[in-house]
């Protein structure tokens, strides 16, 4: 059973509840970005807000995950997260090693634990 109607009606639901509700913030961003000066204090503040928000998203994903990750115990999530960051620094700030290494450690730890 689909949670929305078949055909065009379903897509209309997706556009109204999803696409427009989502895209409107990008349009506001274009309008606001026109008035921002790259060296100004307002720009620095907006940038700090964006950084804190994305960092917050990260910590929420690790500490309070939804879906498949929720079945992995907290200590495995935190240890793999820390290990990924450590790998990143050990490999001279290599993104690939940090990301893939951390995920593989989570996989192995979960298999060993379960």
């Amino acid at each position, binding site marked *: *059973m689909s949670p929305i109607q078949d055909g065009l009606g379903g897509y209309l639901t997706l556009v109204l509840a999803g696409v*427009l509700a989502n895209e409107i913030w990008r349009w506001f961003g*274009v309008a606001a*970005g026109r008035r921002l000066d790259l060296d100004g204090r307002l720009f620095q503040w907006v940038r700090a807000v964006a950084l804190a928000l994305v960092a917050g998203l990260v*910590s929420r994903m690790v500490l309070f995950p939804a879906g498949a990750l929720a079945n992995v115990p907290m200590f495995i999530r935190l240890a793999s997260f820390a290990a990924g960051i450590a790998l990143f620094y050990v490999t001279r700030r290599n993104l690939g090693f940090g990301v893939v290494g951390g995920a593989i450690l989570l996989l192995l730890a979960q298999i060993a634990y379960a």
Partner: protein
Amino acid sequence: MIEHRTTPARAFLLGLRAAYSVAAFVLFATALGFGALARDTGFTLGHTAFLSLTMFALPNQVVLIDQLARGASLASAALAVTLAAVRLFPMVATIMPTLRGSTRRPLLEVLAAHFVAVTTWIEGARRLPAMPEDVRLHHHLGIGVAVCFMMVLGSVTGYLLSVGMPPVVSAALVFTTPLYFILSLVATAKARLDMAAIILGCGLAPLFYLIVPGLDLLATGLVGGTLAFLWGTARP
């Protein structure tokens, strides 16, 4: 000094190469999870691809299908999505001054804004400063098209593969996202203000998640960002 002029077309093609980045791989892995979730909650393959193409913001897409699958009304689903989408606003507002050259291109700017999500924002911070100002918009569009393509491909693949994927594998795939986000933020952080915002964001989010669930990211961004700004600009 010999300087090669970068044409808009070349800048766009260089942007397309972002399809072969760690960012695109991580996004692909995360999109697999979204595809699997969409099938699990009863959406069609068409819906799944459509949402990745038109919303291009995975966490918000997850919020939408989660709401609809729980039988939420159109209005409450839209409200949940729009609250999650507020984070796009500061990202677009801060990337726009970097993108715009000397000429006004309103339509291209709106299109470029569609391709702003955490992944392309981070990739943009890494790649855009090396580009000449007048072709940054085209370069960003190239990155956006490449990354969006990988997201659609990932969600379709995840939808088709979802039957039979062990949960521990999906968990590891989902886990690449927070790791990629945090490492890229750290890798592109410039001033001490940036690091302060990242650390405060990580620390405040769980607190606000427990106090004001639903508004937690907004509160984290505003409070954490403002504190970092005040501290970072207090004494140079």
